[in-house]
């Protein structure tokens, strides 16, 4: 998988296609929640990848767009519940920023089912499982994401062949 260019993503036909989901997880809540899901042996789709960040407030919207560019089919930004932020106020800024970001993404035609923001605490292992599973299930019928995706050839204009 790793050494294959992304353009070779399996197509939608066939049962086995699972959308690639990238989760930005704050290390104090959601990452701990994901660890707890592991401790509790809660199963979820294997196509979930987690990137650990110190706080959801560290998750730059630019990372999210980059993930879609690079071929992820869904992105989840997750952190502590508002009021529970390890860094006191980080997730309040996250919430404000991503309220705008979700509207912007939808405005440019990105299916809102592909992009979620969610609060998952360190004790919510089952919620982590549930959210990534739901996200996967919601995206599966949509097929691989093409919007904003950096598809080759990257040539614009020019003689087309």
């Amino acid at each position, binding site marked *: 998988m790793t050494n294959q*260019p992304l353009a070779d993503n399996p197509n939608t036909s066939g049962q086995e296609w699972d959308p690639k989901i990238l989760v930005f997880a704050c290390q104090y809540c959601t990452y701990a929640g994901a660890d707890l899901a592991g401790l509790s042996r809660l199963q979820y789709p294997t196509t979930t990848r987690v990137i650990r960040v110190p706080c959801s407030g560290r998750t730059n919207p630019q990372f999210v767009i980059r993930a879609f560019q690079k071929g992820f089919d869904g992105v989840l930004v997750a952190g502590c519940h508002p009021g529970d932020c390890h860094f006191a106020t980080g997730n309040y800024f996250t919430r404000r920023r991503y309220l705008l970001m979700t509207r912007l993404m939808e405005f440019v035609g990105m299916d809102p089912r592909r992009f979620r923001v969610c609060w998952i605490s360190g004790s919510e292992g089952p919620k982590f499982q549930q959210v990534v599973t739901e996200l996967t299930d919601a995206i599966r019928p949509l097929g691989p994401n093409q919007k904003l995706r*950096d598809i080759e050839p990257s040539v614009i204009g*020019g*003689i087309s062949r």
Partner: protein
Amino acid sequence: MRKIAKTRIDDVLRALAPRYDLYVPVEGATTMRTPTATLWQEGLENASRFRLYEEGLPLYWRTNTGLSPKDLFFPQTEKMYTAISQGKTVEIKEESTNAWPIILFGVRSCDIASIDCMDRVFLQKGYEDTYYKNRRQRTLIFALGCSTHEDTCFCTSMGIDPKASPTADVQISDLGDAFGFTAQSPSGQQILASIDSLMSDAYTAQPVSPDPMLINVNLEGVTEKLETMFDHPLWDELSPRCIGCGTCTFLCPTCYCFDINHKSPTHAHIVKQRSWDSCMFVDYTCMAGGHNPRPSKTERVRNRFLDKLLYNRQRHGRVFCVGCGRCVSKCPVSLEIATVIQKIQAAEVTP
């Protein structure tokens, strides 16, 4: 000269399209090739540009296109080769070349002159750029004489005849209600012969002449004068207005600078590409260590106009401005070449 009614020009295009990659000037409104493209029509209009011919595209015949045809030979971003790592080895995949003939239909005199400029850079300077050459050498050019002009046009000041381009394979003339076709090369003759049945004779027709242009600049002596003006205060006077965008250079049909870079769709996979660069960008001359020999706008603005009017004449034998008026029209702050030439002419120099 043979002619065809303007209303039947699609017949000509339809006849050529199966045999050539036919590029035509298209209005901005519906350049999206999708079934839902109509949703765009009622909205804002994009700049017109050359596109591969398809039935139903709204063709733009009024004046030169918003975006010059230079991107057909010299795309804004062009893939050069791909490197794929497999284990510890790297495999290089070159881009394949193609021999299918191309017709560039309806190019204006100014843009044809600019293609001459580009040829001098990419083909005639002792080194042939394979990417450019591959496209250029299989292209036939159908020039279209102008019957009107934009307010911003000033090709006549640059010594260009808006109605005639002798280097084109075919010259199309605006005869009012018809287009007249004159072959100017053997290949042109051949193509015209193949569609001759669509046309009728036009012995007496005279091409419509455009009105005199609104902008007139005097190019005489400018190059020579500029040789003494490197340290002239004019550049300090002009440059503050520049906002450092790439509009002039990207729209200019004779700007040929590019940057070679790469992108990695995956970390085991690199695409080497080249893309337009602009000498107006801050990082254009920035070196790896961070030093920038053109640290401020004064140096950058000076360089651009010296390049257009002096360096290219020294290097490639002609001034690299064809009077297409795109920068006059689109420079956000009207720091365009016509104004600058006027200011150069007016500048006082102490010998």
